[in-house]
């Protein structure tokens, strides 16, 4: 069941009504049943998988709490159980391919077995939630004693498929609170859901057309076209995933539950470290807490820190998908984070005037530079393989020469008039970029905290009309569903 489907439009209000009509003590079982119905509507057999993992973690983790000796070993076993399941379902083909290629270099022709594995939706997300739970208990946090509460934590349907990755300390206590119905839940929840759908259907899906064409046939586009297509992908993935997150958060709010935010205007980040504080926050904080810090974090000196940073980001890339281009994307992120640290250290060493570093010109130049560094990374992420990534990147790096001899006739996107989104990019991309700054400015003015009632209603009605016209039901599924 997809968020942008009619099934969900029926499912969500039904669960919402039942939830608020049900006494508090039955709400968790109700949501649990609803979440399993939601998950099993795709492939019923995988309901067993999520249930099995839940049971295994529920039974194993209390041993970590109770253990006085071998605590680390039990934690290791628990984490291994989760990672093995993830490995089998997500990385089996990738590993076999890598082994086959390796053996091929050695002159051995290995016929890999054909496995009929279909990646269960959301497995990367709930496995990370289980690992977080085990590690937190190991660090001294209390275990969840009630199985139903624990079972709802990974399976909660709004966040089940593509996060945000929750923290049990934040989520489980909310289940204990006998929340009373408030209109604010519906207002905020609905606004988030409508905004999420609009981001997905009206923006991301239209940009997807350009991106799809550009990355499938980079040879047909000029260097400047490819830059525009890369910008388009930067906004497509942001609006697609932020749209999903909005719907997830809005759906949770309808039941009075809050789940973490995932984005905070990432494209106004002034450096890559800042970008990762604003992009997919629930994942980046998870990586920091359960990978970077356990690896040693920043405690072992400069080179060890860089090693940890690189490993964390490379594995974070691989988490997105079992393919070399995702690994390359992660490695690139690790590399630019290291370079950023080196740059900061160099600036301090040289003793660049603090006034310059704090000036607005420097800040906005950094924002523009960071955006382009991130965009180059998106090429690895979006390309179907490393060969295409290479083709696109070589096109991108031809831009300075192309700019020297610039003419509008160079731009293939201006020649394509059907679909009209191609030439419209020239107008849409600056608007999307400007909207980020406007939202930031409105944020500062605290506009969002007290929107006039009439504005709220008008915007919601307008969005309902637009979404009805542009039928979200026929829109493709969210990008992050594949992870």
């Amino acid at each position, binding site marked *: 069941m997809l968020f942008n489907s009619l099934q969900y439009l029926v499912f969500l209000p039904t669960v919402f009504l039942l939830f608020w009509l049900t006494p508090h003590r039955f709400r968790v079982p109700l949501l649990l049943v609803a979440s399993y119905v939601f998950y099993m509507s795709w492939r019923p057999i995988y309901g067993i998988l999520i249930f099995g993992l839940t049971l295994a973690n529920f039974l194993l983790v209390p041993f970590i709490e109770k253990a006085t000796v071998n605590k680390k070993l039990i934690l290791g076993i628990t984490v291994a159980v989760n990672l093995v399941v993830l490995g089998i379902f997500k990385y089996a083909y990738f590993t076999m391919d890598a082994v086959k290629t390796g053996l091929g270099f050695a002159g051995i022709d290995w016929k890999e077995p054909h496995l009929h594995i279909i990646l269960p939706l959301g497995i990367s997300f709930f496995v990370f939630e289980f690992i977080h739970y085990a590690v937190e208990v190991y660090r001294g946090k*209390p275990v969840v004693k009630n199985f139903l509460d624990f079972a709802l934590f990974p399976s909660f349907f709004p966040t089940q498929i593509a996060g945000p990755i929750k923290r049990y300390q934040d989520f489980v206590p909310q289940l204990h*609170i006998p929340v009373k119905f408030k209109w604010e839940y519906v207002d905020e929840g609905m606004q988030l859901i409508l905004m999420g759908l609009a981001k997905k259907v009206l923006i991301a899906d239209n940009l997807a057309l350009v991106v799809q064409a550009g990355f499938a046939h980079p040879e047909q586009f000029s260097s400047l076209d490819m830059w525009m297509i890369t910008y388009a992908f930067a906004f497509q993935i942001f609006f697609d995933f932020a749209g999903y997150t909005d719907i997830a958060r809005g759906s949770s709010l309808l039941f009075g539950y809050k789940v973490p935010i995932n984005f905070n205007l990432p494209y106004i980040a002034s450096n890559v470290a800042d970008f990762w504080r604003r992009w997919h926050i629930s994942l980046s904080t998870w990586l920091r807490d359960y990978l970077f810090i356990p690896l040693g974090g920043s405690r072992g000196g400069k080179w060890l820190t860089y090693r940890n940073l690189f490993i964390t980001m490379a594995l974070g890339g691989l988490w997105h998908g079992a393919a070399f281009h995702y690994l390359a994307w992660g490695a690139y992120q690790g590399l630019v984070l290291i370079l950023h640290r080196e740059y900061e250290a160099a600036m301090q060493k040289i003793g660049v005037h603090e006034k310059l570093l704090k000036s607005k010109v420097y800040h906005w130049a950094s924002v523009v530079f960071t955006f382009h560094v991130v965009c180059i990374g998106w090429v690895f992420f979006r390309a179907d393989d490393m060969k295409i990534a290479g083709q696109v990147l070589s096109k991108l790096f031809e831009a300075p020469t192309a700019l020297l001899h610039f003419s509008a006739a160079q731009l293939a996107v201006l020649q394509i008039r059907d679909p009209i989104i191609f030439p419209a990019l020239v107008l849409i991309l600056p608007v999307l970029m400007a909207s980020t700054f406007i939202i930031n400015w409105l944020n500062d003015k605290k506009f969002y905290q007290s929107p006039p009632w009439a504005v709220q209603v008008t915007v919601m009605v307008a969005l309902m009309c637009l979404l009805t016209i542009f039928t979200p039901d026929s829109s493709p599924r969210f990008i992050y569903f594949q992870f």
Partner: protein
Amino acid sequence: MTAAPQERTERRAYVSPDLVIKAAMDPTIPKRRATDKIPLLEPRRSGMRAAATWAILIFCLGNFALSFYNPIEFDPYKYLYKGWTWWGFDEMKKTNFVHNVALLGSSLMVSAVAGVDANYLNKTLDLSQYHRAKYLDDNLITRFGGDFRSLNLSIPGQMPSDAYMTLKAMVATANRPDIVVYGIAPRDFIDSTMSSAADTEAFRFLRRIVNIDDVASHVFRTPIARLEWFINRTFYISQHAADFQLLFKETTEKVVGEIVPCPPATTRFTWWDRIKLLPSYLPGEIRPQAVMTGPISEAAARKRWINNAPEYLERYKHPDKHVYQTQFYFLQEIAKFCKKERIELVLVNMPLTSYNIHLLGPPRYMSFVGDLHVFALKNNVAFYDMCTPSNYSQQDFHDSVHLNAYGGRKFFDQLVNIISLSGRTRQAFTLSGKDLERHQAVANTKTPLYQ
């Protein structure tokens, strides 16, 4: 306000201090105290309540009001998605000719008509623009006298549900034919790759012209599909979503064209370039000169053979009993509709290669033909089984199901022959031919009566 609600909620304190967590998870502490400590939502300004409920209410009432007043008169022929059916009806609307015979069927009929006519007229035919069956018409005129003008509304993948909609739309737009020749084959009923009856291009376009309330329960199988149908007919905006999309597209094209004009270039970006660049964008849409059929010599036609066995293995893989029954239901509806409108229905089982029947499986094929016979008897429909492998060799086909130009000529010759052998169809065709000839003569009279 709503431009980025995630930022808004982020600004509200979302804290979960350990103390509060422990309190919430500790059974000895009353839960209401824990509630106070976790700020789920900050109190909001009074007067802002239930904005979502009001928005839903306004949206629903607005839609009902628009349905009553119907402020914009949309043209059902102005449609975003120009598929085979759209082009057929577009020509019918533009030409204003009276057609006394309508041809319906899938690509098996399309291929037979196009091949034979391209050779007969000795010219290349653009199938988005050409919807006649000249060879058949002339053959009918020779055999039955009078005048014949056929309209070929067969389209690739046409199922009985599409054929029903097509026929109903012809009558609804004052283009009632006297006779319908409907060529069918097992794949119109047994096709694993077949989409739901409501998902075809023909169905989506024709529901703008035809009321489908009477068949809705058979078209929309699942409760969700039925709900979607209900929403589409109840909510004005949903009902006219395609019109609004077209309006939006035209406006955007105009605005973008003004602000960002197309720079001069050595080569123009064509529809074909678009197909290569975005193969999954508007699949099935065709444009003029997209599908052309030219004259072909007998030797070349007989030599040409495309192996489409893998495609048909896939199509025949998992026959869906419900789809089979649904499509037979629509065949029944076609028969009922023809009876009501006094249209003579001629049902033809299209020729297939024995190889294709083997792919389907002889028992399945026999069951299909048996069902057709029972259907024809029950509904008193003229049914001609032309699928006789003894009459057609592999050289009459250009793959396992589609007749080539020479196979097509053989098919139409035999069809006209069979029609003339049966008293019922002979009479129907003779009367129809004479009728059209008489009406044409009256219409062509140049001297006004009052002179």
